[in-house]
């Protein structure tokens, strides 16, 4: 009896389903043949609040610009998958970065994690992904800090995590090229922030000291200062006594502002000042006022870089103009890389064979040979497995026409395909 009733029901259900199917069939046939697959999820970890929030400031703009591209998604094996991005704020805190990455992996079940901006974000993000076997792409951290900071083996590399950015070898080459292009006494004074970036750049084997000496400079290395230092008078005194013409090192913007003001108070006027990290953002230069004019810095990317986005077709210049139009703000260097990291992920997804197999996505990432808005990214060549380098050139802040102060590219010996904006000049004293 029971069995009979079950049979009757299933027959009815089958009939109903068949009937509906027959009615719906023409509608299906009139649509494009592509079936809609499950959405692909990208996790996007970046510092949007906290001390390094300036790096994540353009995230909303960058992702909004990619809305249509992401909605159209990628077609894998004849099935169209829309792509969604889940943004997480690292709060400029490495512990928080690890926590939100774990959330992305365990709760949101993302397919790829994208981590960007300083080793405090990219190192914990990559570590979580490596641990959980989730494909991960990082950028906006000198590659040695990301690779050796995680105890990477240059022969094997990492299984699940990849990275693209410039490295210590590039910044030492750019800085020394800048300094050699002017007439100085070749004495360099250096001060390093007591953090991973300062440690990487001051490394006695791979950092500045050997590179600077190899090119004939005399290095007055005063060692590490505490990041939030309010007083540099002792160091300025030492530089003055050693008669250095060139000042370099790693500084966060407030520390450099204090250093530079005190240098003026103490009557210390070097011909060249090239602090790494301190002058990336226009706001840091505006905070120095006219004493910021003539300072030199590393340039990872600019509107004048001759590259364009593979996703939107925008050139670097168009992309920066759109940013200024939408936010009323001057372009900054990280915005190109925030766009590029999504480009690399989308390119890898297009070449992925089995979307539900993380190993297949990872294989596609490692095959990356792509032309992005920040230049060519080739993850097959190395310096070490899973790391690609992007070009770095030398820049100098000068008075501008469109904005109060503008970053000019003044040395491209490391990447001659990037056009020069003007000539490198000593600081006017």
């Amino acid at each position, binding site marked *: 009896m029971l069995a009979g009733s079950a049979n009757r029901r299933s027959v009815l259900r089958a009939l109903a389903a068949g009937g509906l199917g027959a009615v719906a069939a023409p509608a299906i046939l009139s649509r494009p043949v592509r079936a809609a697959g499950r959405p692909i999820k990208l996790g996007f970890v970046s510092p949007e*609040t*906290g*001390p*390094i*929030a*300036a790096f*994540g*400031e353009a995230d909303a703009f960058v992702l909004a610009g990619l809305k249509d591209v992401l909605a159209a998604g990628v077609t894998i094996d004849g099935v169209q998958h829309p792509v969604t991005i889940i943004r997480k704020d690292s709060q*400029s805190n490495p512990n928080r970065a690890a926590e939100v990455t774990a959330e992305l992996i365990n709760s949101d079940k993302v397919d790829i994690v994208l981590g960007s901006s300083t080793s405090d974000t990219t190192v914990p993000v990559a570590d979580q992904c490596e641990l959980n076997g989730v494909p991960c792409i990082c950028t906006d951290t000198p590659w040695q800090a990301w690779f050796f900071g995680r105890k990477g083996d240059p022969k094997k590399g990492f299984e699940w995590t990849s990275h693209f950015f410039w490295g210590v070898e590039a910044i030492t080459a750019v800085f020394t090229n800048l300094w050699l292009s002017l007439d100085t006494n070749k004495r360099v004074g250096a*001060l390093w922030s*007591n953090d991973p970036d300062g440690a990487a750049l001051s490394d006695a084997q791979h950092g500045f000291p050997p590179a600077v000496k190899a090119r004939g400079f005399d290095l007055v290395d*005063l*060692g*590490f*200062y*505490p990041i*939030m*230092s*309010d*007083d540099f*008078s*002792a*160091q300025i*005194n030492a530089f003055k006594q050693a008669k250095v013409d060139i000042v370099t090192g790693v500084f966060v*913007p*407030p520390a450099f*502002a*204090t250093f530079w*003001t*005190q240098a*003026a*108070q*103490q*009557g210390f006027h070097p011909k060249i000042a090239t602090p790494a990290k301190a002058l990336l*953002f226009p*706001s*840091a230069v*505006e*905070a*120095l*006022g006219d*004493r910021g004019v003539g300072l030199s810095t590393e340039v990872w990317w600019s509107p004048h870089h001759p590259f364009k986005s593979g996703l939107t077709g925008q050139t670097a210049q168009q992309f920066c103009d759109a940013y200024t139009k939408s936010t009323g703000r001057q372009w900054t260097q990280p915005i190109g890389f925030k766009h590029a990291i999504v480009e690399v992920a989308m390119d890898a997804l297009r070449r992925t064979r089995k979307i539900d197999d993380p190993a297949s996505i990872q294989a596609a990432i490692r095959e990356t040979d792509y032309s992005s808005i920040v230049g060519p990214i080739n993850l097959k060549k190395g310096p070490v497995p899973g790391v690609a380098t992007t070009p770095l050139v030398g820049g100098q802040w000068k008075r501008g026409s469109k904005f109060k102060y503008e970053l000019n590219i003044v040395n491209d010996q490391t990447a001659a395909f990037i056009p020069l904006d003007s000539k490198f000049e000593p600081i006017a004293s």
Partner: protein
Amino acid sequence: MEWLSVIVQGTLLGGLYALFAVGLSLTFGIMRLVNIGHGDLIILAAFIALVVVQALGIHPLASLAIVVPAMFALGYLLQRGVLNRTLGESILPPLLVTFGLSVIIENLLLQLFGADTRRLHVGALETDSLVLPGGIAVGLFPLLIFAVAVAVIAALQLLFYRTDLGRAFRATSDDAVTAELMGADNRHLYALAMAIALAVTGVAGVFLAIRSNFDPAIGPSRLIFAFEAVIIGGLGSLWGTLAGAVILGVAQSIGSALRPEWQILAGDITFLVILVLRPNGLFQRTRD
């Protein structure tokens, strides 16, 4: 001569720390309230100064005329409306509430002003210096900060020891219950104390904004030195706070001259040594 220069620079650095510390010293001394949001309130004052300077186009130092009363009012309302409710037997509730305040201020400023690093400009005064005999260059602006710190402390000292309000503050600080029995309105007194503390914080904020860069996240790092200066100087003693700040500044300066990475360490070690030798600080005035 080089060491003399180190000590002079360290003393001037102490002036900056003293200016940061006085507000904390007041609230701590009178109400035993440890204000974790103190550093962020300094940054809030700096941002108010920024808005005032941009809106009115006045000299940054003239913005004090608006920033200080604004912070005074904020202090009164904050204490009356929020912090008075947290005072009691345990010191934990005010700690937690001011910690929350710190997080709220930081993120509110980030929302309103973005993450940009800012500064107020005063032209040549920023970089002018006096050259003392022996070739020691002393920045005019650090000197001004030191003078302002001394003036603020002298004014507060007058207020505390020469006025009725000062007597009421001291009475409440020594024994809140008895003072209340004698007719003192503690809630009002506490609110006034916080108002004065934040007025001083307003002064600190404006001078910080001219001396160096500031951004919404920079506040908490200002708290620790202020706190150390208060403890070294001793509870309730304003001149002690200045002395503590100068000791801290000179210790950091000497450490830094030996090796740059010893700067903060030298200050912290000095702090710990004083804490071990004189747990109540050098010039304690009030009873615990």
